């Protein structure tokens, strides 16, 4: 008996089709599931869970234009990636293919939620309940994770609308599978922050990659941390990131891969998403930063920073930026590194005329 899995990226939940998703699209250029959180994207983690559950084949359906299919998705064994324009038609097609290949059951999951349920237990529950599709739920409501019985659904003749109906009906059917384990829905960029915080707190089974150099401090491969930088556990520094001198990374913060936190900056209770350069002497507090966008979670506002010396995208995007911007970032405008160093040196140098005058050894008026 075969078992397949279809993972969908780029389709929003019913609950997230609101202002939250607008904020997410304003901040981020691709779906939340594609962003690395502690070294790996949620989509990658969802696929990994199916691969570990010994599912025969995993199909990744990416909604056209929603994100770049990264090589690491292709890197999994038995995972095929497909860019689609109509998700339900693509699911229907995949189920037909599975049916043809002798696969009787398939998981259908959205990459927008990470759950730590026992997938085989879900499958056995579905088989015993003898229904066409079983949807999983948790204490917050239905989740986009189904098990579909290909033979009962008669997938070989199914149309996309039938497939959509089948998944929708599973919600109203009596037997839903209740997940008691850890679940994290990604509906808003703040969920990325919450997920990172949960992992660093040890609320779920995910462990950050890299080396745990001290208890609760994970440094991934190729990351450079200046010896004058201060990292307070728990925290994560991603691959090839650079933490400069006099910085402070604290309170469950995660710095993802290829980031740079420059001189004197404090990152507190924040997530710095991949390829982000944080300028010097800043306070990034209770926020999510990605490229030149900053989401202040306390104020619930997305701020676009036009000044590249403060916040900007790193890597390829920055290399293709206009020379004017790069020069501006190097010189800085308000707090340039050169200005700060000059200021520090001038403070150390004695100011002419301000030195205390030497005390004259005059006779003590009391003693005479």
């Amino acid at each position, binding site marked *: 008996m075969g078992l397949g899995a279809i993972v969908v990226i780029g389709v929003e939940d019913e609950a997230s089709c609101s202002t939250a998703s607008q904020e997410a699209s304003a901040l981020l250029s691709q779906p939340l599931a594609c962003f690395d959180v502690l070294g790996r994207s949620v989509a990658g983690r969802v696929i990994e869970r199916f691969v570990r559950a010994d599912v025969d084949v995993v199909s990744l359906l990416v909604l056209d234009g929603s994100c770049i299919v990264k090589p690491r998705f292709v890197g999994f064994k038995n995972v095929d990636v497909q860019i689609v324009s109509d998700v339900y038609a693509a699911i229907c097609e995949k189920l037909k293919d599975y049916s043809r290949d002798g696969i009787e059951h398939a998981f259908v999951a959205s990459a927008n939620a990470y759950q730590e349920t026992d997938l085989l237990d879900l499958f056995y529950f579905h088989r015993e309940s003898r229904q066409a599709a079983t949807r999983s739920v948790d204490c917050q409501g239905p989740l986009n994770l189904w098990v579909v019985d290909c033979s009962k659904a008669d997938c070989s003749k199914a149309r996309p609308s039938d497939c959509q109906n089948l998944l929708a009906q599973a919600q109203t059917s009596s037997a839903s599978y209740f997940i008691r384990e850890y679940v994290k829905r990604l509906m808003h960029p703040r969920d990325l922050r919450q997920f990172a915080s949960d992992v660093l707190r040890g609320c779920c089974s995910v462990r950050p990659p890299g080396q745990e150099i001290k208890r609760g401090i994970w440094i991934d491969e190729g990351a450079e941390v200046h010896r004058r930088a201060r990292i307070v556990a728990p925290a994560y520094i991603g691959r090839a990131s650079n933490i400069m001198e006099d910085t402070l990374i604290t309170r469950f913060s995660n710095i993802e891969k290829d980031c740079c936190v420059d001189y004197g900056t404090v990152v507190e209770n924040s997530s710095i998403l991949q390829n982000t350069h944080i300028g010097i*002497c*800043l*306070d*990034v*507090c209770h*926020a999510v930063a990605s490229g030149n966008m*900053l989401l*202040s979670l306390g*104020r*619930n*506002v997305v*701020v*676009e*920073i*036009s*000044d590249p*010396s*403060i*916040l900007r995208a790193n890597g390829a995007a920055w290399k293709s930026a206009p020379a004017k911007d790069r020069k501006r970032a190097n010189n800085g*405008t*308000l*707090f340039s590194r050169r200005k700060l160093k000059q200021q520090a040196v001038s403070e150390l140098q004695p100011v002419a005329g301000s030195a205390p005058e030497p005390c004259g050894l005059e006779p003590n008026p009391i003693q005479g």
Partner: protein
Amino acid sequence: MMEVPENFDHSEGRTFLAELQPLLQSDRPRIVLDCSQVQHMDSAGIEMLLNCMGEAMKRDGDIKLANLSPVSAAILELMRVDRLFEVFNTVEEATRSFQAVTLPDVPQSLPWYSPGFGPDDLKSAS
């Protein structure tokens, strides 16, 4: 009280500074800046604010910020400038804070001790 422009960058900031200059030149300038309209602020704008505060303080005055928009509040916090200014929820509160600092005039004729319990009271008590 002056309203900070919606786009508080280099070009808009110069216009704003030109309008603010006469106030800064006065004796003990006490200025409240209403930041409710600010939707974009860059480092040139912040630098201008700091320069204005420096000028005001040289003349024994102060600049206070009121009614910060979420964007301006986030940027000021990011750049650690929020701690340099006194920030108020409303313009009225900021204006009142200036009045609270000035001490009421005490008539010179009053004695330094409590007028309710003077030397005459002591005599009558004995």
